[in-house]
């Protein structure tokens, strides 16, 4: 007989989101289990040994492992159970409305875990060379930035001697500096967009301080080398098309890809959770509940965040909503859709409820130092704010109070670019 366990709340993933959510539900007296594949909690934070984390959430500057440790401690102190080295193979909704997970782990073998609510907190994976179909050969020495980070920071392994980084995402930028500190040369960072994908502070501290060239609007058009990488060919882009007659060679033995993150929602989809094509994450309401009642989502599995502190905050918020749901405290108002128009890539949540405090998260599609974000409902502008600094790399977060969301009716956000450059 397969053993079955029952909890009020199951959290899938013990990264920043999962640990923060579990701390809240456990502290409220809800029996909570957190399931994670790794042997230790913390998720990707554990390999991010640089600092710059936690100023907002823990009010002190921490490294990734320190952040992970504090988050795990908080969850455990609150009474959450951690089930580590464990993989969720299957999830289904039972006729009685409970959620049943099939979990494998070397410690406990096969377990069924039943709960009233599930919080999805699986984070994301890195896009890789195969997703982009970068041409060339398939030698050793091609890594995603995160995989190289794991080898270097957790195993003490040097992935190469001379690297080119494809994409200017934050992990790639952090890795550029990390490689230099390990004695590995970094020949270039190559970015297809006309602006960097990562945060400005990382461009400055990880590239400029080391004199590492950043090629904007350039693309790697060929990876060379049969056994181990021997170089790459890079070409400038014109109207998005590589100008191969202007391509140039860069000698290297390592290529790291930092070309974006994809929320890991294969498990979510398998149980019928509908996804937002603009984020890759579940469509949720302002209670962070997905289209499948009882299943909630928070953190990078919902949409890719810029700072881990926002992940923890979002997860706490989601956990509060889970508690209210379990306690049968439904907000009074009705729900209505939330949409984005000009210059915004997405908004989370996708539905909201009047009469309830709500946090909205957005990503801009434009780089600007003069813009106005406005919210329109029932033909009226119900809220607006001016911004002096908007970058696609940085999330925009807007907290609206219950009294600002008095009415029902579709809510539309748009980002209007000002006159100033």
């Amino acid at each position, binding site marked *: 007989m397969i053993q079955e366990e029952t909890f009020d709340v199951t959290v899938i993933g013990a990264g920043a989101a999962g640990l923060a959510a579990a701390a809240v539900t456990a502290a409220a007296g809800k029996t909570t289990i957190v399931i994670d594949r790794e042997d230790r909690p913390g998720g990707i934070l554990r390999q991010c040994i640089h600092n710059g984390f936690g100023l907002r959430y823990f009010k002190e500057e921490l490294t990734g492992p320190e952040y992970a440790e504090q988050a795990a401690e908080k969850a455990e102190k609150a009474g959450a159970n951690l089930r580590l080295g464990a993989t969720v193979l299957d999830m289904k909704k039972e006729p009685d409305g409970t959620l049943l997970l099939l979990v494998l782990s070397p410690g406990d073998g096969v377990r069924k875990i039943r709960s009233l609510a599930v919080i999805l907190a699986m984070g994301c994976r890195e896009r890789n060379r195969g997703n982009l179909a970068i041409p060339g050969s398939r030698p050793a020495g091609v890594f995603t930035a995160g995989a190289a980070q794991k080898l270097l920071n957790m*195993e003490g392994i040097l992935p190469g001697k001379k690297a080119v980084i494809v994409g200017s995402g934050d992990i790639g930028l952090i890795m550029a500096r990390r490689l230099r500190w390990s004695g590995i040369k970094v020949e270039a960072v190559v970015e297809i967009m006309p602006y960097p994908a990562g945060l400005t502070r990382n461009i400055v501290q990880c590239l400029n301080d080391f004199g590492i060239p950043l090629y904007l609007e350039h693309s790697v058009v060929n990876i060379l080398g049969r056994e181990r990488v021997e170089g790459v060919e890079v070409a400038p882009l014109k109207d998005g098309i590589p100008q191969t007659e202007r391509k140039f060679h860069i000698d290297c033995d390592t290529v790291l890809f930092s070309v974006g993150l994809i929320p890991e929602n294969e498990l979510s989809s398998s149980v019928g959770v509908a996804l937002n094509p603009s984020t890759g994450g579940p469509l949720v309401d302002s209670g962070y509940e997905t289209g499948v009642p009882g299943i909630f989502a928070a953190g990078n599995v919902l949409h890719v965040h810029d700072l881990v502190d926002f992940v923890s905050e979002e997860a706490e918020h989601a956990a509060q909503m889970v508690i209210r749901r379990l306690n049968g405290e439904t907000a009074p108002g009705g729900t209505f859709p939330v949409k984005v128009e000009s210059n915004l890539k997405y908004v989370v949540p996708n539905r909201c409820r009047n009469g309830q405090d709500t946090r909205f998260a957005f990503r801009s599609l434009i780089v600007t130092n003069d813009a106005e974000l406005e919210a329109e409902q029932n033909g009226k502008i119900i809220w607006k704010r001016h911004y002096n600094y908007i970058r696609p790399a940085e999330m925009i977060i807007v907290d609206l109070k219950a009294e600002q969301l008095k009415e029902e009716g579709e809510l539309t956000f748009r980002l209007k670019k000002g006159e100033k450059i």
Partner: protein
Amino acid sequence: MTYDVAIIGAGVTGASSAWHLSRYQLKAVLLERWADVCFGVSKANSGIIHGGFHHPVSTLKARLEIRGNLMFERLQHELGFPFKRTGILVVAFSEEEMSTVHKLYEQGIRNGVRDLEMCGRDRLLQLEEKLNPEVVGGFFAPGGGTIEPYRYVFSLVEAARRNDVDLKCNFEVAGADRQENTWLIRSANGEEVRARYVVNAAGLFADRVSRIFGAEEFTIHPRKGEEYLLDRNSPARPQRVIFPVPTEHSKGVLVIPTAEGTTMIGPTADPVENKLDTTTSADNMKRILAHVRNMVNGISPRDLITSFAGLRPVMDNEDFYIALSEKAPDFVQAAGIQSPGLTASPAIGEYVKELLKSAGLPLLEKVHIVSELAPRHEIRHEPIEEMERLHREDPAWTHIICRCEKISEAEIVEAVRKGHTTLDGVKFYTRAGMGRCQGGFCSAKIMKIISRETGIPMEKLTKKGGKSRLAVGRLGDLKVETNQKTSEA
């Protein structure tokens, strides 16, 4: 010692020959140039079991294809690799293409292929709902199917080894001498092997091997095929293998529901000069996408997870060249094994065995042979009770290492203990690293397991043998330059 037979090349041709010979009282050895078996032509095979209608029965390849096709149920039963008779649809999108469809259908009938069925649009859409509804007509070959080519080769080699065939990897044939009715074969790194008979199953390099043995002069022309793999959740995955109407040099670009649940699109067919050129190109990706999007709905570049290329070893006359050498004694040529070589392989192995017999190799059946491999456990396919039982046997069975393909630590350990000690070797044996993250999450874990099991330090492990080192050293090995400025952002 002197082997009775040395087979040069541990791809599908060599492996099948070894498996057939392993039933007899003789001592054979497989000599493989690369670090693992199936690392050459066979690795990049499309994995199609062809339907016997593409080539006229006047060719050797058609005869062996038709016979080979019929042998797969039994082989699957004995060796346990993933194989499914999905059926093949050849689809036409114009009346001109329909005329070729008719010719192919009639060729299939003449070849003696049974159950071929001409289909109008409605029948095609009934057989395959993913087809573009603009399809005009085509035909259905229920005997076609898909297979995991490397799993097939691994199990052939494993079964041959269980029956006393030796395997030497990293053995690149560099020279050969005839001494007292025996071949003395030398490798590039100075190893020597003696054998009475030699089978040349060297794939792309069969021409060079033939020359080394003083046998026939011929040229193997590499013809490249690029393939692109789509996520197992791609909405495009069809039920059956979808073929376009073929061209002169290839069977065209296909949509393949692989035996392990992903969808593959390709291959191209372009002649190249370099026999090691397995590069892919942006133009061919666009070409393939354009072709297949016309045939099947739901194909999106967003679902791409990887791409690769392989080279077909092509003879001037496009046929297989399987014969006793007329110039070199006791030397069997098994060259030019391009498509449909995988389908034909069971019959090729048999044919090679018969040629050796005709050259005087005595074939006495062994009293005891291992005719079936024990079924391999794969946690992703086990029922819950069996998962629990495996866990009690070894907790590594419930420790998932590759999250995308759900491969357990126990499966990886098994691969390493069977001699697959490179990252690619483990990947092709177990599927760990073949899924949507392409090893982003599990490579370091797999490297740790290989290192633990073999004692090779992690930083010395390779992707596919030779100089394909995955790392260059340990933290602290490189001198750090200190020309950093410090800025406040």
